[in-house]
């Protein structure tokens, strides 16, 4: 299976219909995210490509570049805004799960434990995210 094909990360077939990723049912998106980690490890592909590779491998969804309806969905996506929000969701998933798999300093479960113990709050994490984002975007 090639990881170099062009696959739009947001255009996926689900039950025979072309659906934007963030409009998929929660359990399907969770499946995509779960599969993504293992496929990334194997193919060293970008997250979006890897996610679709995983879906195809499991025959749950199929990518749909060039398919009927593809252009219409893309036209309604309001790119890049929509893609940026999808990237922000991916960043959150990275932070909470994917990066934890191979991070000895912040292993899986540590963030949740730190919040439960009161070492930090969700607001602290979000404030840090905002601070760095504003510094790199607005302050550049």
């Amino acid at each position: 299976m090639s990881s170099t094909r062009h696959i739009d990360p947001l255009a996926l077939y689900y039950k025979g219909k072309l659906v934007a990723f963030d409009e998929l049912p929660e359990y399907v998106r969770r499946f995509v995210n779960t599969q993504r980690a293992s496929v990334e490890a194997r193919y060293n592909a970008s997250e979006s490509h890897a996610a679709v590779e995983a879906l195809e491998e499991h025959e749950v969804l199929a990518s749909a570049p060039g398919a009927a309806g593809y252009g219409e969905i893309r036209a309604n996506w309001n790119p890049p805004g929509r893609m940026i929000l999808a990237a922000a969701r991916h960043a959150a998933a990275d932070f909470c799960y994917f990066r934890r798999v191979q991070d000895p300093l912040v292993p899986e479960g540590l963030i949740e434990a730190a919040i439960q113990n009161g070492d930090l709050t969700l607001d602290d994490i979000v404030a840090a995210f905002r601070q760095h984002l504003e510094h790199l975007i607005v302050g550049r």
Partner: protein
Amino acid sequence: MSTRRETILANVSNLVAKFLYYDRKEDDDLPRGAIEEAVEQGEITVDEIVATFRDEVAKRVQ
């Protein structure tokens, strides 16, 4: 020695760099500089990005 809090927050800093730069290097649809440009041109705001990030993290850690 860093506290658990400091270690986690340092991780957030790295995450933002990944979001803006490293993940963008091989992303044809959202290349490097596209997020900064979209914010500058008013197509999206930092608040919207932060709110989306917050919602997703909240779902996963709480």
